[in-house]
């Protein structure tokens, strides 16, 4: 009863706070009640799940691994729910709506990543592991040392990912329904805490399954509505997309002066061709490496394989996850292009420059538009799915961090593996609470920060530190404790260090000069010949000239205030109402640009260097994986070769036989 009351309290607080602070956002005020009703239904469903799960969550195996009673199919849906974060669900549809082909290409790596999970990680981890990545590494290496490093790495990776989710979630909810950022973050945090602390892995699993089912249903419905007018023909549909004036205008805008010589048809077709967004192939390959190898090293994904009864069920779950995740990304091709054709890239980017609103706006349009009841119901539903997405992903991440703290550090290292069931479960719940409160605090502190690169960084650290350690422990006889520790530390520090000196950071000099250009305009630039780079080194580090294509001459551009004055003069003589409205809209847009530039000029006045004391990036890629992943592997190998570890050698036979056969694997709970 006490638990029920607490739930009721959380739900009531959240709903009360949401309705009290809602103003602005994509949903019109008169339809807000509907959004909150849909949110309320989804929160009620997840709370019922949590209440049910809490009654059967008493032991450590139940708390961390849902009693290993999750079936393969259920786990497949849960993995999809855990993995399809707001970034991939809203972000990729947005990228496709703004940049066409490049957005779709970006989604591929997120699925291919599961091949690595399926072939080399899922089954052995299920056969060897218990609750955490630390358990797998401690099997044949020094348990205390490896558990400390594994827990540190787990917490680092999860915190990066968690911060990105909390900040992204707060911004998203604010953009959608206008709830204050801080309130959104606290609401998401409290709900997620209720799931994790009371219902452990069982509640988390079913919240993730619910969310994945809702997400797939919503996407199928939208795609059906978008595609059916074209008789489900791909060429006919895409032909309509690229024939749309809004899409053509977007391509012309992206291409700039190069668009002048192209016909409308060519411009439209360009939307389906590469190169509108992803400009640096080396950076692409670097990100691809981090995705393909990092997913298999993500602690919250690894943890999902301990919830199924056997290695066979682990295999089934990856197959299902791949079907759902892959199918979903194919659907996003239609969601993105549909939003581009029906809503228009300019409107999407106007509400959120990253394109995150493409899916929700498409839903609103398909339901009948901004002023219709059904349109707003669709929007409310998609917004609620987005909200469920954030809590589901955050719950999985908090559980992974909490298990590293409680199971690896507290029970494994501090208590020397001597703790009663009850003590362990209490430790797990307390750790969840600590991690959850930390997530809320970090979320609020990081308000307004650019956190988009943190997701890529989380994958890069997982790929450079966790994956080499887990992979080589499982498959290489000579791997040992020193190798694991050195590899994990050097791999993760390199990945983080490279990002600190990369273009992801803010460089005041660049911001100031960009703001100045906005205010004062740009002088004419003469055509530049192509620069021939001096090899790969120059593409990675700012030590020599980087290769650059030829640039055409550019006419001088006026500053924003000058443009504004011109528009105002135009407005004064304009007679047509539609033309007037258009000019007024342009002036509002210019005002925004001017305010932002003025803010930047003030904020960075007098500063010349980034956090790391650099005037411009020293490492030129946004993704460090290309260097840090091979280095992580290399360090595990080298340090293992130069040191000896008797236990690691003696345990090899047992580990290798067990990971391949499943003999003595942790069994399912029998009730």
């Amino acid at each position: 009863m006490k638990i029920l009351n607490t739930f009721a309290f959380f739900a009531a607080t959240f709903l009360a706070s949401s309705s009290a602070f809602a103003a602005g956002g994509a949903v019109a005020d008169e339809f807000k009640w509907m959004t909150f009703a849909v949110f309320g239904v989804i929160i009620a469903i997840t709370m019922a799940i949590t209440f049910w799960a809490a009654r059967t969550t008493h032991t450590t195996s139940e708390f961390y691994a849902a009693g290993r009673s999750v079936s393969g199919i259920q786990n497949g849906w849960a993995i999809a729910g855990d993995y399809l974060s707001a970034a991939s669900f809203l972000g990729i549809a947005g990228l496709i709506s703004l940049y066409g082909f490049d957005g779709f290409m970006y989604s591929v790596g997120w699925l291919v990543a599961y091949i690595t999970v399926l072939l080399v990680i899922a089954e052995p981890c299920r056969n060897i592991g218990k609750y955490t990545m630390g358990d797998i590494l401690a099997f044949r290496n020094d348990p205390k040392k490896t558990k400390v490093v594994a827990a540190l790495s787990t917490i680092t990776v999860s915190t990066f990912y968690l911060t990105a989710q909390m900040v992204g979630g707060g911004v998203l909810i604010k953009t959608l329904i206008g709830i204050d950022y801080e309130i959104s973050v606290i609401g998401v945090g409290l709900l997620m805490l209720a799931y994790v602390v009371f219902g452990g892995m069982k509640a988390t699993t079913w919240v993730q399954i619910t969310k994945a089912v809702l997400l797939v249903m919503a996407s199928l419905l939208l795609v059906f509505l978008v595609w059916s007018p074209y008789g489900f023909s791909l060429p006919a549909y895409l032909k309509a997309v690229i024939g749309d004036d809004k899409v053509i205008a977007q391509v012309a805008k992206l291409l700039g002066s190069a668009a002048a010589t192209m016909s409308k048809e060519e411009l439209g077709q360009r939307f389906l061709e590469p190169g509108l967004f992803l400009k640096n192939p080396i950076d692409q390959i670097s990100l691809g490496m981090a995705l393909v190898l990092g997913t298999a090293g993500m602690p919250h994904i690894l943890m999902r394989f301990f919830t199924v009864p056997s290695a066979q069920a682990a295999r089934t779950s990856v197959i299902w996850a791949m079907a759902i995740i892959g199918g979903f990304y194919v659907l996003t091709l239609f969601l993105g292009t549909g939003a581009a054709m029906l809503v228009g890239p300019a409107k999407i980017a106007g509400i959120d420059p990253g394109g995150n609103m493409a899916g929700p706006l498409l839903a609103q349009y398909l339901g009948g538009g901004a002023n219709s009841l059904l349109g707003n119901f669709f929007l409310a539903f998609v917004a609620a799915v987005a909200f469920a997405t954030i809590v589901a992903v955050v719950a999985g991440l908090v559980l992974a961090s909490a298990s590293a703290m409680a199971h690896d550090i507290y029970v494994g290292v501090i208590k020397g593996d001597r703790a009663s069931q009850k003590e362990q479960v209490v430790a797990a719940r307390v750790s969840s609470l600590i991690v959850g409160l930390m997530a809320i605090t970090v979320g609020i502190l990081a308000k307004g920060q650019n956190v988009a690169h943190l997701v890529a960084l989380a994958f890069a650290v997982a790929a450079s530190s966790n994956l080499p350690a887990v992979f080589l422990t499982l498959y290489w006889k000579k791997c040992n404790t020193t190798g694991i520790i050195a590899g994990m530390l050097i791999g993760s520090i390199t990945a983080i260090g490279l990002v600190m000196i990369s273009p992801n950071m803010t460089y005041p000099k660049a911001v100031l000069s960009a703001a100045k250009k906005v205010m004062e305009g740009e002088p004419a630039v003469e055509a530049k010949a192509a620069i021939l780079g001096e090899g790969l080194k120059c593409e990675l580090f700012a030590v020599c000239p980087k290769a650059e294509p030829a640039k055409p001459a550019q006419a001088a551009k006026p500053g924003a205030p000058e443009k504004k004055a011109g528009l105002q003069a135009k407005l004064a003589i304009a007679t047509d109402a539609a033309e007037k409205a258009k000019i007024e809209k342009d002036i509002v847009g210019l005002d925004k640009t001017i305010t932002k530039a003025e803010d930047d000029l003030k904020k960075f006045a007098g500063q010349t260097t980034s956090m790391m004391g650099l005037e411009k990036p020293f490492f030129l890629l946004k993704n460090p994986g290309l260097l840090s992943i091979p280095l992580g592997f290399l360090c595990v190998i080298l340090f293992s070769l130069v040191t000896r570890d008797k236990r690691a050698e003696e345990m090899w036979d047992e580990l290798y036989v067990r990971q391949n056969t499943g003999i003595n694997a942790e069994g399912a709970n029998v009730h």
Partner: protein
Amino acid sequence: MSKREMNWAAIDTDPRFQELHRKKTSFLWGLMLLSTVYYFMLPIGAAYFQDLFKIKVWGVVNVGILFALSEFVVAWTIAFVYSRKANTEFDIMAQAIIADAHKLGV
């Protein structure tokens, strides 16, 4: 399930286990290599073979889009091929070893 003490070294050297190890290793590495090479062909193609990617083959649908879609088909096919092989061959080989595990090397 109670944990049994096993003679792990004996199982490891058993010819059946060695056979399983050999088959699995070559099969997994083959699939892994195939999927990695196929995946990285996409960003490389998009960057360095744009003329090829732009060729229209099915109405407005060009090689690039078909290639990106084929990435999904190839990933699913690899998953299907692996799970079939594992279900029909590796699991059965492992079962035979598990059944005899406690007899080996005692």
